């Protein structure tokens, strides 16, 4: 009972703090004496913390530990991919995207291809990816609340949905860089501090290796668990590579990540920010697998069950117990809740912004339009979370990445690095990529398949959908050279010339 009360208190604390910051905002008043401070832009390090804070979702905080616990080291490809995606972003996209002046992905599509149709299609994809990404956040919140407080799963989702909605409607967390940066350090602390205690307990218990060959959990030996390629499905090699394609190429297409790059003053700062994000994410992702390894020793009954996602929250009470264990659980619950709120709010704002601009604003006035859009942006994924069968949080997030990789990745890469891209090519490519991955998502959420090539292809669609989308864009662009936008060369110069070079960018 006391553990439930502490868990609830932690959730309440995070909620109230988030709403308070959102409502009253952080106001820094400045006078002319420190005018220079005011016109100084956001430091790449701070911006990187903010990006990481918004990016590290329930899938990272809870999902990875659950997957690694159940399926073993091959699941480490998820955090590896989620980090490595920023490497691709750094090398190929960050600086040119910032120089394009675009705030959102549809903005970039419109600026590059001078077409309203491409913009509309890109907006539809933003909404689809956003919903697909918010849905598992709500499911994960259900898991967290069930573990911490004993509430039923749907209630947790409902609570998060309501809090996110309030938060977004109050104008909170919108893009206050400082608040999002704080979120990262909160999550890191919430995961690191309990882990220190847990590792001390583990050492005190003799420090047995979770990968000990003689340790059988759920019928799997320690060696098999620690093997990085032995994938759970029927076609491990294909699934692993497909996952890598999805996560490496999908990061650049996440709507709530891209808008943060606008805060960088120039392309160079955008690159510096991305490097810092790589470091911060790398640091964070060391922690969840350790929880999973400890879970193999101390919570073997969770392996392979849907409760595996809650292993991070279970460990303190099992290993330490008492008030200390309850306090650590409360801290972890708070961190997990912060993770849902940050990511869901960021995505909801992104999705609601798109709905406002492209659908609502033609029918309803100003603020009402945004409010209505925010409601739609939260309610749909909540209903999806209720309808869909029980799929691991990280799996659904993986599908969102696959969809981003099959749509926005070709659009961005070809848009930035190939002057031959036409609006017709982009439209057909977005359509093919979106339809293929969308079909795979629907199949995944509704049908439970066991084994076989078809199941492997559908559960990890990136490896075939991404090349098809690329091929379609290139082929259709080649067939429609007369549709090349009039100002392509000029725009390319803008994208690729460092800001320090003097030239007429008009």
């Amino acid at each position, binding site marked *: 009972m006391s553990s439930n009360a502490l868990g609830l208190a932690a959730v309440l604390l995070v909620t109230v703090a988030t709403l308070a910051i959102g409502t009253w905002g952080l106001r820094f008043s400045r006078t*002319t004496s420190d*005018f220079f401070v005011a*016109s100084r832009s956001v430091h790449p390090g701070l911006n990187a913390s903010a990006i990481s804070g918004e990016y590290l979702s329930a899938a990272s905080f809870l999902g990875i530990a659950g997957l690694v616990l159940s399926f073993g080291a091959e699941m480490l490809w998820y955090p590896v991919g989620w980090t490595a995606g920023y490497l691709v972003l750094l090398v190929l996209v960050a600086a040119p995207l910032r120089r394009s002046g675009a705030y*959102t992905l549809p903005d970039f599509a419109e*600026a590059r291809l001078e077409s309203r149709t491409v913009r509309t299609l890109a907006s539809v994809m933003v909404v689809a990816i956003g919903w697909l990404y918010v849905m598992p956040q709500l499911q994960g919140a259900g898991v967290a609340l069930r573990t911490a407080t004993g509430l039923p799963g749907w209630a947790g989702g409902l609570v998060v949905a309501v809090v996110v909605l309030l938060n977004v409607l109050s104008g909170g967390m919108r893009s206050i860089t400082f608040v999002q940066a704080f979120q990262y350090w909160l999550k890191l602390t919430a995961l690191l501090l309990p882990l220190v205690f847990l590792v001390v307990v583990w050492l005190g218990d003799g420090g047995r290796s979770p990968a000990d060959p003689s340790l059988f959990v759920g019928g799997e030996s320690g060696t098999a668990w620690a093997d990085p390629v032995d994938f759970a499905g029927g076609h491990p090699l294909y699934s692993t590579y497909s996952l890598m394609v999805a996560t490496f190429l999908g990061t650049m297409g996440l709507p709530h990540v891209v808008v943060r790059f606008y*805060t960088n003053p120039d392309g160079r700062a955008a690159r510096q920010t991305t490097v810092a994000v790589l470091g911060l994410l790398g640091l964070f992702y060391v922690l969840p697998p350790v929880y999973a390894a400890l879970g193999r020793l101390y919570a073997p009954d969770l392996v392979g069950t849907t409760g595996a996602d809650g292993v991070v929250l279970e460990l303190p009470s099992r290993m330490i117990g008492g008030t200390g264990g309850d306090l650590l659980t409360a801290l972890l619950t708070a961190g997990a809740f912060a993770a849902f709120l940050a990511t869901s709010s960021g995505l909801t704002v992104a999705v609601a*912004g798109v709905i406002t601009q492209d659908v609502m604003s033609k029918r309803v006035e100003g603020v009402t339009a945004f409010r209505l859009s925010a409601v739609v942006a939260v309610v749909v994924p909540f209903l999806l979370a209720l309808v869909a069968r029980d799929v691991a949080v990280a799996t659904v997030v993986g599908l969102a990445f696959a969809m981003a990789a099959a749509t926005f990745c070709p659009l961005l890469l070809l848009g930035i690095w190939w002057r031959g891209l036409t609006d017709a090519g982009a439209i057909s490519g977005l359509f093919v990529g979106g339809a293929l991955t969308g079909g795979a998502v629907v199949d995944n959420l509704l049908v439970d398949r066991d084994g076989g090539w078809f199941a492997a292809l559908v559960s990890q669609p990136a490896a075939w959908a991404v090349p098809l989308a690329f091929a379609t864009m290139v082929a259709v662009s080649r067939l429609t050279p007369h549709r090349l936008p009039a100002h392509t060369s000029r725009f390319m110069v803008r994208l690729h010339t460092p800001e320090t070079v003097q030239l*007429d*960018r008009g």
Partner: protein
Amino acid sequence: MAFEGLRSRWYARQLGSDADLATYRTLHTASLASPALRQGLNAESVERALRHLRNLLGTAAVAIADTHDLLGYDGLSTHHADQAQAIALRAVDATSTVVAGRAELACDTQGCLVQQAIASPLVIDDRVAGALVALTDEASASLLRATEEVAAWVSGQLELAELDESRHRLVRAEVRALRAQISPHFIYNSLGAIASFVRTDPDRARDLLLEFADFTRYSFRQHGDFTTLAEELRSIERYLLLEQARFGDRLRVTLQVAPEVLGVSIPFLCLQPLVENAVQHGLRSVAGGGHVTIEARDADRECVISIEDNGAGEDPGRIREALAGESAGESVGLANVDERLRTTFGDEYGLVVETAPGAGTRVVVRVPKFAPGVAP
């Protein structure tokens, strides 16, 4: 039969009689041609408009020429294009409608649908800019009338296009004027203030001179219509430093800028005049000196900038007049900024001024973070 009669009566009641429907159709066809013609008289706009003009006139072919060449020909019997050009030029020279008969439109094609032509001049601001040619098999008095009317309507659209263009020219001229306008008083006063420090505080005088140099370099720069919010704020900062050197504690400034919006692209010198107004209003106010607050907030897709002073305020009616361009005087800057924001981002992004006598003034500028074609 009874049903048919019922239906046609229902249509007549709901949608108007046949004559009404014909009027609507005509107006609709005309409205289709209008956007193209508003681009001005050139081959591209003419090509887009001609199809609709042919529907409007119902002739076999139509053509439009400027004072030298044929700009476009739409319809059947394209081998008459050269003759159409000759007839058009004749109308341009005559500055009145001309009718050409079979003799001028001779051709070898059996049953050619183009036998006669009517050309009517297009007049923009009392100047003949071209001619509209209707080519038909049988020119009638009613077609002559219709051609003249359509030519007059096209002329009207082209005049509007000229008006758009001259409005843009005016805005560009106003920006240039604004750059030049910053100067006399401010330069004189700043140099005076700097001079007063030369003996007492030479270091400060030197710093102020450098600020002054940077300020003028920015304000008089020649290239680019756009700048970033950070650049504009930096220039405003220099301006305020110079004003503070002159007024000391009588001018207080508070600044709240969300660092996220510093990279937003805005029209060059669109905040500077507003700050200048605020400083003047504030200083003209009561005892205790003026207080100017500059705030830039992040609002998702937009950046909201507000400039507020605690001055004497103004009658809202006068501000309305100033924004409508009906009164001259110190609010020229206000109207200019408003006009430039509207032409750059669209009418919904005009200035919002909140003021009342004795209550200070607050000017709010909204700027989208991204607008196609807007970049420094």
